[in-house]
């Protein structure tokens, strides 16, 4: 990556006023420099574009006039308020543009070879689907879609829509929260490789506990974070190996029938019990950390490693272990829903009441869900968030709304 930065006039204030008009000539000169440098992808970011993205759109058009084949990432579509983090997210998106095209082309070719003639969708990290064309423009929307799929699958399998989901694999356990059937989003900035970004990511708390976690067999046994990972079926004791893993403990306690139970029959039952209780306590603490309010919540356990946790989890109103819990991830990807969201600041005053602002935000989010391919009558608002701004007497509020609907299979979505 080179250092090709062009700072141009434009941008908006927090209340939507323009900071400076766009200088089209200045942008054209920047576009010519981009063309001269042979760049194939560009990130465009403007101050307060989540409130008003007109200037980013215009700038994008001007750049495209000069460099027709360029892939353009506009920050308003990638990140949220927080210029630096949004800009970083947009740059990451722009950098992945070519790779995304390469991958979707390969997917399409693979499906063709298999003789499958069907629309292609990819799962994105908010639990909704996107078209292949969409992922080519917004590759960052795939980040962390794995844990999201598991959570969505857990919702469908268990019938729970507001609960904690614990997805335990071979190396780690991911704890997330479902709100209205969708994963709750991370509020704060997310660091990707040491770079602060603020694109949408599911709020997931990872723990170093999994089926392959190595057990330190001391007076008070400690489990993880080291793991045998995918080598579980050769290195764990019940599979004839010589490493004591969390799975061996579950077998010794009689919680699971895997491999050869005789290999762990010598283990001290008191110590096995203590170790398993410790795992449950750590999972319970993670669930508690993820809650937004006091009170017990249902906890849905999915993933192959969920055999490590007992049914008595403090803070859980009930522990649900749905059928097919080991394949929740694949099921989550197969639920066809699409969404739209909005994150904007509104200046509440005589011309705009709080209720009107909320209504406007709801309408815009629903419109975005429609544009993404949702059947209009299936669209519902799944999340509304309001944040008052400090130091602003004019009562500015930041409103975030997310709408979701069923994918209309008869209609080609507008990406």
């Amino acid at each position, binding site marked *: 990556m080179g250092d090709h930065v062009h700072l141009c006039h434009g941008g908006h204030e927090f209340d939507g006023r323009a900071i400076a008009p766009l200088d089209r000539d200045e942008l054209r000169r920047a576009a010519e420099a981009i063309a001269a440098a042979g760049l194939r992808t560009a990130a465009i970011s403007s101050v307060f574009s989540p409130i008003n993205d007109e200037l980013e759109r215009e700038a994008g058009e001007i750049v495209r006039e000069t460099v027709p084949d360029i892939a353009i990432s506009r920050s308003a579509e990638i990140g949220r308020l*927080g210029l630096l983090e949004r800009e970083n997210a947009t740059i990451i998106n722009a950098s992945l543009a070519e790779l995304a095209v390469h991958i979707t082309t390969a997917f399409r070719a693979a499906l063709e070879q298999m003789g499958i003639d069907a629309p292609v969708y990819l799962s994105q990290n908010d639990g909704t689907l996107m078209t292949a064309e969409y992922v080519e423009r917004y590759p960052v929307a795939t980040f962390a879609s794995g844990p999201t799929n598991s959570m969505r699958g857990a919702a469908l399998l268990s019938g729970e829509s507001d609960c904690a989901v614990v997805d335990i694999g071979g190396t780690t356990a991911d704890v997330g929260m479902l709100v209205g059937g969708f994963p709750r989003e991370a509020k704060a900035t997310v660091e990707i490789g040491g770079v602060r970004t603020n694109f949408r990511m599911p709020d997931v708390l990872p723990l170093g506990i999994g089926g392959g976690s190595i057990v330190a067999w001391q007076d008070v046994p400690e489990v993880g974070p080291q793991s045998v990972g995918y080598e579980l079926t050769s290195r764990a004791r019940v599979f004839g190996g010589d490493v004591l893993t969390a799975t061996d403990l579950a077998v010794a306690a009689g919680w699971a029938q895997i491999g050869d139970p005789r290999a762990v029959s010598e283990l001290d039952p008191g110590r096995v019990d203590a170790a398993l209780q410790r795992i449950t306590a750590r999972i319970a603490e993670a669930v508690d950390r993820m809650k937004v309010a006091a009170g017990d919540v249902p906890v849905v356990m999915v993933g192959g490693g969920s055999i490590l946790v007992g049914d008595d989890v403090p803070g859980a109103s009930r522990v649900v272990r749905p059928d097919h819990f080991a394949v929740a991830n694949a099921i989550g990807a197969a639920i066809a829903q699409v969404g739209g969201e909005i994150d904007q600041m509104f200046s509440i005053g005589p011309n705009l009441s709080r209720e009107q602002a909320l209504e406007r935000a709801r309408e815009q989010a629903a419109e975005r869900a429609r544009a993404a391919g949702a059947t209009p009558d299936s669209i519902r608002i799944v999340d509304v968030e309001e944040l008052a701004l400090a130091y602003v007497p004019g009562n500015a509020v930041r409103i975030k709304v997310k709408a979701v609907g069923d994918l209309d299979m008869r209609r080609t979505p507008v990406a």
Partner: protein
Amino acid sequence: MREIGEHQLEDIALGAGVLGTGGGGDPYIGKLLAQQSVRRYGPVTVVDLDEVPDDALVISSAMMGAPTVMVEKLPRGDEVVRAFERLQHHLGREATHTMSIEIGGLNSVVPFCLATRLGLPVVDADLMGRAFPELQMCIPTIYGIDCAPMAIADDKGNSSVIEAADNRWAERLARSHTIDMGCAALIALYPMAGARLRECTIAGSLTAAEELGRLIRETREGHGDPIAAILERCRGHRLFGGKVTDVDRRTERGFARAHVRIDGLDDDAGRALDLETQNEHLVASVDGQVLASVPDLIVVLDSETGQAITTEELRYGFRVTVAAMPCDARWRTDRGLEIVGPRPFGYDFDYVPIEQLAEALAG
């Protein structure tokens, strides 16, 4: 006299995060701007208070506005220079030094953006010893020293000089300007002669913030206990350890106020701490009994990492340790408490220093 470069700014910002007592704006952006400035123009000379000549003209520089806006509309870097030059022009004199008004949060590092560009030394001091929400909440106000004439500038090329009847008026007028300018502006204020500086500033606070930051960094690197290290360094008292169970936010008179409830864990199990905040943390109490209040510094730290948690970040489930540290002695005078005691913030009780409260509790 010494030089401050990129590395030291890292530590200053880390320490300033703690001294921000939940507010003061995220020093992260200020740090990046200052570091970029240092890379471009070279390191900054920092001088001790006693190195400042009596006839020096010291003008403080700061950012004013909503932290939520500042994360979106970053300063270009020259606004603060324009505000500063505007005030110099108005005074008909060139400043010899600049300094910070607020060592807590973002404003700890803003003067470096100016100092690099103008080649001015920064005085190792500030006017609050922590973070406060308003311009009159500075030690010079106690001594009848005026905040104005002050100058304010924005990113669009606007600037203005403010003459005010008193420091409260300076705050009010500058606040209106700030909102018109898009809720983020740069200011040059509290012009003072070197001779006055010694009685009405907090000496060595830049170095103190840097040392605090370094201590936190090194304690973390050595897998030590950063909270214990912070308390020892700042003569702090651990008030409470627990889990955030409720955060009730509301906007009143343009300020983000919140009531936070923390349920005790371990030694504090069975009790709950109530925390009142207005941008910064103001009062900590258990069952109506005040454990600490402004102007002492109430800090909320992540129980595991010792990271200072801002008011905006606080939410249910956070495991936190609440601690209080003594403020500058001048804030504890009658005049000081009239400006930043519990009463000007709307509380109907008298201030008791944290040391006495802690002793009463222990006894």
